[in-house]
């Protein structure tokens, strides 16, 4: 009699074990899928953030080695910016479109001379050159950007001397 009473109980308990195990495995699989999905999403957003800042660094290198910005007509190992070229770029109509044709789209450059402490920042225009200390090309203040600052030498053509400046090169998110 005892035996007849325990068999259905065993069957039920085995069934419960299977159900619990299946449920547990299902939860593990779903958790695994969610984990891998999240990992891939976070990885790709990290990759795009790295790519974004790498673009800024690359762009800084391109500007620093471009004859449109640097002194002379030869690409050299120790280039310096030429203020007469920065000025000429500022004065060229449709300069951003032309720069985009050469370097690609979605970037800006700004150069500020480091003068005497407390010296006022003066944007360079065709009217005040060479008595000015800041050039800005293709800046779009409303757009999100990653940027990169680096110290640069700036050759001052009219005065025939070299000043030190900070160049900011940035790229806009696409």
């Amino acid at each position, binding site marked *: 009699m005892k035996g007849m009473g325990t068999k259905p109980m065993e069957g039920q308990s085995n069934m419960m074990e*299977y159900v619990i195990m*299946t449920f547990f*495995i299902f939860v593990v*699989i779903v958790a695994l899928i969610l984990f*891998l999905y999240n990992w891939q999403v976070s990885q790709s957003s990290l990759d795009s953030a790295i790519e974004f800042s790498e673009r800024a660094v*690359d762009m800084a*290198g*391109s500007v620093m*080695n471009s*004859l*449109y910005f640097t*002194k*002379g*007509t*030869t*690409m*050299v*190992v120790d280039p310096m910016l030429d203020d*007469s*070229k920065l*000025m*000429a*770029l500022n*004065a*060229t109509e449709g*300069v951003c*479109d*032309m*720069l*985009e*044709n*050469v*370097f*690609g*789209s979605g970037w800006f450059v700004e150069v500020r001379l480091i003068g005497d402490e407390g010296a006022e920042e003066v944007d360079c225009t*065709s009217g005040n*050159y*060479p008595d000015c200390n800041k050039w800005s090309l293709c800046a779009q203040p409303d757009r999100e950007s990653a940027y990169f600052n680096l110290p640069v030498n700036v050759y001052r*053509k*009219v005065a025939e001397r070299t000043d030190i400046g900070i160049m900011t090169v940035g790229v806009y998110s696409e």
Partner: protein
Amino acid sequence: MFGLILAGFFLYFFLSYAGVYSETEESGIRLDIIKNFKSAIEDVYKTGVSVTFSQFGESGMDFDLSFDADYNPPAHYPSLVSNVQSVRLMPPSIIVPGDEVFVYRTYFSLGWWKLYFVEALPDMAVIFASTDAGKGLVNDIVSHMPSTGQAQVDVTFGFCDEGDLYYDSLCDGGSCERTGFQDFLDSGFYSSSVACTATLPESHRVVTISGSCSSAYAGEGVCLTPPDESGIGYAYVHGSQEQHVYRNIFDVLSLVLGGDEGTMQGITGERFYRYSTNVFREHIRFAALMTANRVGMLAAELGTGPECVDDYLALGNTLESISTLLAGDYGDYSDSIELAQLLGQADAEYESLLSKGCEVREYLL
């Protein structure tokens, strides 16, 4: 039974995930290699330090890489296209894909400006079938190609005269890379007035230079007429009836290195030629406009006294004319002659500024 079904389900899940994951990983590796190639080209363009890029061959993967040379900004920029993704490539370049490529920078000078461009070349033999009148152009082509003496990639040169090939034993019993070939050119030249029919080495480019080149050119590779006194000539590519005007060494190398291979987009040499023409137009138009503004501003700043002013003003006017010409629908032979004359004039005016010390002469080490 239930256990078997469960195990099967697990196996299926893991195998399919592993399959998708390995495919994604492989695509990622391919993309990384293409981006590394792009970086190598950009670095060589910036620094001028040549490199051998061998990751395509080392990976053992199929990339199906090509250079989409359609440069039509802002609608379309050139890019490296593969079976994974395409990446934009801004430095002026001539890219010939291969398992191992030598990346090299060269330039041509207009005096007041230099146009730099990169060549990425696999093992290649450039074979000339040229009349004596083409010797200068042969020299010019060779001097703008890499010297691969110590590199893993071999870019070599030789001659062809109808059925005779002068290639295998031209330099110390072997084939010539650039330096050896230039030494050879100093003392010798195998002239040919007919198309090359010899059996050629693998991965070759045939360059025929002859006054009789025409749209009916049936030989292999490209046929170039010797340049006139302005440095301009006509070019014809095997498999096409089109006549092209070449104006500078960038045009010539685009045609030669692109070659006569037909693709879905057209003959590679012709695609590269259109690219070099557009790159020259965009870059030099902008450079001329910017430099004209620069010299105009400097002339105004220096006042009327110093001797630089007149030369600055003259150069500014010439550069404005160049910019205007390039902005228009230039392209035929007469426009090219006019452009060459203006470029020559600007070069002379810049030289005058250099000789007076108004601009600083640079010496290349």
